[in-house]
């Protein structure tokens, strides 16, 4: 069989989607020419590069994707010419690549207005990873940054500058921000909100020239001169004033072009040459360029089908509705947002106190929704979009859709049951309600499974709440009860048990088991209930009635190692320690022959302690002023910190002081899983706070609070919960956050997974914690205060409790140690003898 030679020019998001659609098609031999030095990455989430994501994190390429036979990726290979007669593509390095079919997925380039001085050093654009690297480089030597362009990308870009700690300005030619998506009132509110975040907005500014600034370097490298006579001094400028199609290749190849650029394509995405296709932002369909990823994906899927001989389907334009979060402000725009349809009517709701603006555009007969604008709060985006797309009849009082719900009112919106099977739920990945239902009846019974098998909600994530609603509704219809029982002994989730323990005022595992469970309990429910009891009552974990429910680590207040010895971690709050205390740790390790290692959490771990040694070790440590580090517990472990403003040239707050303060506040607190924290003294983030359950990063004005990060097996960058808050607010929010997680988390569920499973995600958490939407803020704080007030060092308590101390021996009937524990020397310290070295048989 002759293979078809397919050449794809461009490996952006759309180009890559085409490749994904063509995998496992042995009849096609694909060559991909990619101008950039790396394969496809996620440009939609580009600004996350500045909140910590790496180029690798943004990659869209599955591991091993380009290892497939018949798929040839050439990086740094810029296509410079096409010859549609000879059917070859020429590259910059002189190669000629022949094709049978050619797909142009060359994307777009940022438009830079022809202003004199636009090519001065420090004048940049925002499109590729290389652009971002240049921005980061300039950002590090700048104090002021200007973004030219107040559209969607411009505001994203402003966030990036702000994240780098620059005084940020947005300069827009039009009278308002986001001209395309929002109306005047929405634009006004958006501007107010963005300015409240410290970004200065200048509208109706026509830049005439960029010249030398008076600032002589940092603080005013450039001066932007505007047509109205005003001027603005800045250190760097990023142009984000719209995009233009990358069409020069097609133009020089003689393909038909639009008057103002763009490669003309038909409903099959074919150009004027039937063997050449164009998809994504370089393609001009019906006089329109689509600058969103979803229509580009539609084109890619369509062309993939054409290439394998399936002529069905055509591109019929795309819905340009969009929902985004710009600088933390929710903005959504649906359909005919500007009310351009003749005879259309508007419903408006504006709340200047809360900062919400909502507009509905309805048909003249008030029967259907044509469009909407939402600023400040866009929770109803999914519902409104489905109404507009599917022509679902409006309720009798359409205004109810945007008016805030009164207490006791029935929930507004449409049940997902009303949606037809054809309703597109995830437009990024073209998943319909019917697709979701099919997957659910095929066994995808959790949000995770459903996302994995349909890809719904895996790109922009905007449809996730709707996907979850469809899932729940379908499961309910199928009569499936969703089980989240703790184990065979309790037909309750951890959250339910927490509630039952609290309202039942239960004090022991046996009490809880008799009242709410059956059997005798097991190694799953015992520690889980013990943790709940500790979070609610905070009694000594080794009290006789709790002892039998503790995992061995909690039972011996130390960490069991593979050879049956334990490790000991004294608390070193914030990682700050005096020379005297360091010497004590060294002496204790020497005295008991322990292996010492510095941990990742800025503490010192002492390994190789036998059970009978633990009380003696702790007696020495406690005498020197140490206390338990709870390394053994599902509890707060450590609060890592950088040295902060006390010593560091760049620090803006005392991060060590804050770390000690919070570590001493939350020490000993039991939770569904271990908890880690960190405090960084400036935006350089040396304490790696964004990989912690709770991370605090100093700003000029206070603290930024991040939550639900994780390192370990499944790393996750933390989400920003609140910005520029003072010490008291910080502690109050952390109190609420921890207690809310302790109340609702599942057994052994880290905060990162907890958040991902929480309906409404970080926005919901922010409402509960920062806006107190559930009205439980004071209650959560009181619960936490009780834990803080009743804190006791468990080791101090243990060495003063003879009945507890008696358990710290290996044999009940002999003072001998366990002779099976043996060490050998390695690099000057002990290590456990291996089973082979002990001549032991292994199974």
């Amino acid at each position, binding site marked *: 069989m002759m293979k078809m030679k397919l050449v794809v020019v461009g490996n952006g998001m759309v180009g890559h989607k085409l490749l994904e659609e063509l995998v496992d098609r042995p009849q096609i031999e694909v060559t991909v020419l990619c101008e950039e030095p790396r394969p496809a990455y996620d440009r939609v989430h580009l600004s996350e590069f500045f909140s910590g994501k790496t180029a690798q994190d943004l990659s869209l390429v599955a591991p091993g994707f380009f290892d497939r036979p018949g798929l040839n990726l050439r990086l740094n290979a810029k296509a410079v010419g096409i010859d549609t007669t000879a059917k070859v593509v020429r590259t910059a390095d002189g190669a000629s690549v022949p094709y049978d079919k050619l797909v142009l997925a060359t994307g777009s380039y940022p438009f830079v207005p022809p202003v004199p001085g636009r090519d001065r050093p420090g004048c940049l654009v925002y499109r590729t990873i290389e652009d971002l690297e240049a921005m980061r480089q300039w950002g590090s030597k700048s104090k002021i940054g200007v973004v030219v362009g107040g559209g969607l990308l411009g505001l994203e870009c402003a966030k990036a500058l702000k994240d780098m700690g620059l005084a940020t300005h947005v300069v827009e030619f039009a009278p308002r921000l986001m001209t395309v998506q929002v109306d005047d009132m929405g634009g006004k509110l958006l501007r107010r909100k963005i300015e409240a975040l410290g970004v200065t907005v200048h509208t109706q500014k026509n830049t005439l020239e960029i010249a030398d600034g008076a600032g002589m370097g940092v603080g005013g490298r450039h001066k932007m001169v505007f047509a109205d006579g005003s001027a603005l001094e800045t250190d760097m400028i990023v142009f984000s004033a719209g995009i233009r199609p990358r069409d020069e290749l097609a133009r020089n190849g003689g393909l038909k072009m639009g008057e103002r650029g763009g490669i003309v394509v038909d409903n099959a995405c074919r150009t004027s040459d039937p063997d050449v296709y164009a998809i994504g932002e370089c393609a001009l369909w019906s006089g329109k360029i689509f600058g969103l990823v979803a229509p580009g994906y539609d084109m890619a899927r369509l062309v993939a089908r054409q290439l394998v001989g399936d002529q069905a389907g055509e591109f019929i334009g795309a819905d340009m509705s969009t929902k985004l979060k710009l600088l933390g402000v929710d903005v959504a725009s649906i359909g005919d947002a500007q009310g351009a349809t003749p005879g259309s009517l508007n419903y408006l709701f504006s709340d200047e106190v809360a900062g919400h603006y909502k507009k509905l555009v309805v048909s003249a007969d008030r029967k259907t929704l044509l469009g909407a604008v939402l600023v400040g709060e866009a929770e109803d985006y999914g519902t409104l979009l489905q109404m507009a797309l599917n022509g679902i009849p409006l309720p009798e009082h359409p205004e109810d859709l945007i008016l805030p719900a009164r207490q006791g009112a029935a929930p507004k919106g449409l049940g997902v049951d009303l949606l037809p099977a054809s309703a597109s739920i995830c437009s990024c990945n073209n998943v319909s309600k019917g697709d979701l239902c099919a997957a659910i009846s095929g066994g995808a019974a959790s949000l995770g499974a459903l996302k994995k098998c349909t890809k719904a909600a895996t790109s922009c994530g905007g449809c996730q709440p709707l996907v979850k609603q469809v899932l729940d509704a379908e499961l309910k219809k199928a009569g499936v009860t969703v089980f989240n029982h703790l184990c*065979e*002994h309790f037909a309750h989730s951890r959250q339910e048990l927490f509630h039952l323990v609290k309202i039942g005022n239960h004090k022991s595992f*046996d009490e809880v*088991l*008799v009242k709410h469970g059956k*059997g*005798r*309990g*097991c*190694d799953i*429910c*015992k*520690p889980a209930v013990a943790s709940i009891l500790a979070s609610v009552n905070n009694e000594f974990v080794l009290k*006789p009635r709790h*002892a*039998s*429910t503790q*995992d*061995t680590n909690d*039972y*011996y207040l130390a960490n*069991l190692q*593979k*050879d*049956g010895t334990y490790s000991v971690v004294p608390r070193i709050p914030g990682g700050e320690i005096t020379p005297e205390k360091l010497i004590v740790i060294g002496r204790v390790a020497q005295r008991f022959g322990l292996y010492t290692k510095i941990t990742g959490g800025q503490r010192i771990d002492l390994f190789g302690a036998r059970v009978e040694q633990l009380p003696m070790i702790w007696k020495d440590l406690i005498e020197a002023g140490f206390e338990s580090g709870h390394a053994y517990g599902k509890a707060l472990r450590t609060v890592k910190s950088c040295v902060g403003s006390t010593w560091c040239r760049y620090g803006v707050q005392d991060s060590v002081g804050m770390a000690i303060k919070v570590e001493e506040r939350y020490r000993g607190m039991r939770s569904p899983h271990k908890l880690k924290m960190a405090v960084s003294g400036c935006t350089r983030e040396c304490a790696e706070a964004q990989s912690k359950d709770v991370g605090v990063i100093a700003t000029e004005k206070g603290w930024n609070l991040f939550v639900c990060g994780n390192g370990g097996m499944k790393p996750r960058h933390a989400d920003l919960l609140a910005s520029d808050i003072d010490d008291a607010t910080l502690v109050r929010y952390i109190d609420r956050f921890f207690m809310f997680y302790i109340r609702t988390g599942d057994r052994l569920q880290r905060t990162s997974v907890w958040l991902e499973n929480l309906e409404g995600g970080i926005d919901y958490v922010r409402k509960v914690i920062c806006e107190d939407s559930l009205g439980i803020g004071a209650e959560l704080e009181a619960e936490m205060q009780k834990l803080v007030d009743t804190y006791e060092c468990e080791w101090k308590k243990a060495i003063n409790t003879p009945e507890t101390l008696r*358990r710290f021996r*290996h*044999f*009940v*009937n*002999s003072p*001998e140690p*366990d002779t*099976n524990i043996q060490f050998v020397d390695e690099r000057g310290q002990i290590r456990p003898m291996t*089973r082979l070295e*002990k001549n*032991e048989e*292994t*199974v």
Partner: protein
Amino acid sequence: MTTPPRWTYVCRRDDIVPNTGVAAKVGQAQVAVFRVVAPDGEDEAVFAIGNHDPRSGANVISRGLVGDVGGELVVASPVYKNHFCLRTGRCLEDESWSVPAFQVQVSEDGLVLVREA
């Protein structure tokens, strides 16, 4: 020739915290001895199985959590959490990890005796 069974005194029953275990030296063997009590305080019993966890190689079975799985009384190894039947020593996850079971007597005055293997 048969020698009469030898019983080793381990401890008083009350020395063991209910629903926990202790390790005892019985002859040359290490034995994990568990005192099991139902949540209503009834149905008290004492069991003994090998203290050596074949999976990890550590002598730590006595430090596991006691409970029941599918109605069978078990202890979970504190290292890798595999379960051993308290009556027989059988490992529920993999029979090749099973441990020996020992006979136990509790005298009227509450002394726990384990029979040497």
